[in-house]
């Protein structure tokens, strides 16, 4: 650059041309670097989504098997139905289903069925004792290894020693498949079941309810408190050291690591106040404290966007300052406030670390009936499943993540819709 600003420069000279070419090249390099950087970012996004979808989609179906169980009167005592050998009945059904096998071998194949089969059969007969003496047909999930086999996740060509299922087991499963007993319907249990140690039975109901209660608590607390604080700071607070201090405080609070909020919840809510561990209510309290700065900042921005002429007109007509705010400014700012709130709640829904510290990673096999029952939440359930050694939990984890991302996308889409539909340009 300094060369060519010299007025002795001859523009047509090779030196000047070379210089220009170099400068143009550096332009292309910078542009190329930018495109490269963006491509890396998008490649990572693509990898993330595709690895989740490719492992997760399998969990949206579940291999089921249709079996006939002979509930014979000599094996089930009508006076004490629950005490019968239900496991034995399931094994007997397998002997019938696999006529080509030695009965003793066929009994061992009861492992094809999920562990839940015997209990479902028992509950069914307990509920309806007239079934004793009849043959009950039931469709139950298969256990995890056979589910994997049916989905092609177990390679039949690997040597038998390294395979989770041995040759006779695969042969038995193939016989059952040939008999038309095996189906692969939509896995509704993923939504309707609570957690379980067995992948084929594990579902998200408890986690979904837990997250719902926690978000509800979070919303009921953070929304009114956040709006109240924002209105005061934006419209009424005198400009002095105290309101400056509160403002700096809120900005810093927004950047405090989430795990620190977990420590706060553990020390204050659980240890000092003696609130119950693992309860969605306490999770919601902690999430509310985390979401509060987001809502306050968004609300203040929305209030700021309402033009002063609205306030002046209302004041001029004799409204009090509070009437100005609550009758005119707040309704006009509501779309912006709601957008900010939904985005804050979406962040809260994905937050994991603080919930871990207050114990929402417990193993709980029943969905919570109230915000005070022990429960997990969606992100902590993902964490638990990701830590589980069973193969079947890998695809369940991905599926749970897809469910979580589905909720997040929906919430953000609603926020974007609200913004585009109701936002006014003054």
């Amino acid at each position, binding site marked *: *650059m300094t060369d060519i600003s010299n007025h002795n420069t001859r523009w047509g000279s090779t030196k000047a041309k070379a210089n220009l070419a170099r400068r143009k090249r*550096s332009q292309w*390099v*910078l*542009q190329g*670097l*930018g*495109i490269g*950087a*963006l491509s890396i*970012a998008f490649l990572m*996004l693509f*990898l*993330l989504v595709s*690895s989740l979808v490719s*492992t997760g989609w399998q969990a949206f179906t579940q291999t089921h098997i249709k079996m006939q169980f002979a509930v014979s009167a000599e094996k089930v005592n009508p006076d004490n139905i629950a005490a019968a050998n239900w496991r034995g009945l399931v094994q007997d059904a397998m002997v019938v289903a696999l006529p080509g096998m030695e009965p003793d071998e066929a009994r061992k194949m009861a492992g094809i069925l999920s562990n839940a089969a015997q209990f479902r059969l028992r509950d069914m007969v307990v509920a309806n004792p007239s079934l004793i003496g009849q043959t009950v047909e039931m469709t139950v999930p298969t256990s995890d290894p056979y589910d994997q086999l049916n989905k092609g996740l177990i390679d039949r060509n690997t040597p038998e020693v390294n395979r989770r299922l041995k040759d006779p087991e695969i042969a038995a499963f193939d016989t059952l498949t040939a008999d038309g007993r095996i189906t692969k319907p939509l896995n509704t249990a993923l939504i309707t079941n609570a957690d379980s140690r067995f992948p084929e039975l594990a579902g998200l109901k408890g986690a979904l309810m837990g997250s719902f209660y926690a978000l509800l608590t979070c919303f009921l607390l953070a929304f*009114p*408190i*956040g709006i*109240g*604080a924002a209105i*005061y700071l934006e419209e009424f607070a005198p400009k002095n050291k105290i309101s400056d201090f*509160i403002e700096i*405080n*809120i*900005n*810093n609070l927004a*950047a*405090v*690591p*989430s*795990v*620190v909020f*977990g*420590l*706060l919840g*553990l*020390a*204050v809510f659980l240890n000092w*106040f003696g609130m119950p561990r693992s309860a969605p209510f306490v999770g919601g309290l902690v999430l509310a*404290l985390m979401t*509060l*700065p987001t809502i306050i900042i968004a609300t203040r921005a929305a209030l700021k966007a309402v033009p002063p002429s609205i306030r002046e007109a209302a004041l001029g007509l004799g409204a009090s300052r*509070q009437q100005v705010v609550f009758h005119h400014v707040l309704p006009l700012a509501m779309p912006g406030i709601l957008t900010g709130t939904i985005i804050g709640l979406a962040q809260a829904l*994905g937050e*994991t*670390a603080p919930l871990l*510290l207050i114990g929402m*990673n417990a193993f709980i096999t029943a969905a919570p009936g109230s915000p005070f029952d022990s429960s997990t939440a969606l*992100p902590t359930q993902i*964490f638990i499943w*990701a830590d589980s050694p069973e193969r079947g939990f*890998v695809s369940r*984890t*991905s599926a749970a*993540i897809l469910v*979580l*991302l589905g909720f*997040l996308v929906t919430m*953000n889409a609603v926020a974007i819709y609200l913004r585009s539909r109701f936002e006014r340009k003054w």
Partner: protein
Amino acid sequence: MTLFAFGLLLAVSLFGFLLNRQAALSIRAGGQALHSLPQFHGGFSALLIFVPAFVVLILWLTLQGNVINAMILSGLPADAMTGLESGQRQLVMAEIAQLSRGLTFGTPEDWKIAASERLITLRATSSWLMLAVLAAITAAMLVFARKRVASEFRARQGVEGIINGLMIACSVVAILTTAGIVLSLVFESARFFSMVPLSEFLFGTNWEPQIPMRADQVAGAGAFGWLPVILGTMVITTIAMLVAVPIGLFSAIYLNEFASAGVRKVAKPLLEILAGVPTVVYGFFAVLTVAPALRESASAWGIVMSPNTALAAGGVMAIMLIPFISSFADDALSAVPQSLRDGSLALGATRSETVLKVLFPAAIPGIVGGILLAMSRAIGETMIVVMAAGLIATMTINPLDSVTTVTVQIVTLLIGDTSFDNPKTLAAFALGLMLFIVTLVINVFALRIVRKYREVYD
């Protein structure tokens, strides 16, 4: 009982509203002028009844558990709890609580049964007492508010005063939260430092928080030097920043200066998606995809890599930080006045020269602020490292090794049942305090830089 109390509170408030409004209306019907509209008289009564009673109710519900527990404890036989550790004490209290619910395991001692009966009576007393106190407050407020109704009473000012007070209370919640964080961290850390000297924590190079659970158990004595833990945090943060800063900056420069409006419209929301992905998802991605891929490519080169390599955790953390850095840099570049850009281009500089020699220097404070905020986020990031980084603290800066971080240690020390009387649990709070201080200093510094810089061109 609690639901009934809330219902009662709402009903009385509504009654107070209607009563006062009716009274105001009848004054108006009598031919007198009112200072405030009738609904303000009603609202005054409703707020006066609801607010104090609600506060009392919430306080009662949060504190009654502790008070009842203390009363049960003091009522136990003198020798029942001596020599028991806090975990065993909790077990005894849990057993008493279960007895009170009618769940009996084995044959409990007589004093436990007596305590559980006391618990039942105390709970019932507390409920009735709460209801009585509530009734007294609401009734007093109802009468008080009704007496205030008069033609010249400034009910609107009264209502607005109460609402103003409520809004101030809302603003104070933010301060209370910060105070709660600081107090809980300092309080628990102080207990930790009474067991482990501060100098050992700050300068020790050995972090082995395993301590014996019982006195006769053979286990490590426990070492609490945080240097290897903070070193691991620094290793992972450095890896993340080394990857994220160039990618974030170059994409911001491209989007701001070179990309067409159409590209920007697509690319920016896509980048925002990366920022909205929950960190537990990134953690799973690191374990499921990135770490195995890195290990395979490393072994193809003949390099031995730990399964929990810092590279995987740091790399995935970088993906999370890219949109953060890029949007801060984008904002900073956009805030540079158009005149600087035009001036540079008019002098014959190419676009890249304009960006690198004119815009970038002008935007550098904002960019540095953003990078610092991203760094504080990387230091405080928890789930990615909990899932993808290691648990053992080693003094190493080799990115191929497994390192642990402050946040990993906090979570692993506190997961599961915790009792607050051993250095293992309290160490997590000491680490939390350090984490809070470090991130706070970086944040305050970064926010100051960003704000100062914005003032220059506004």
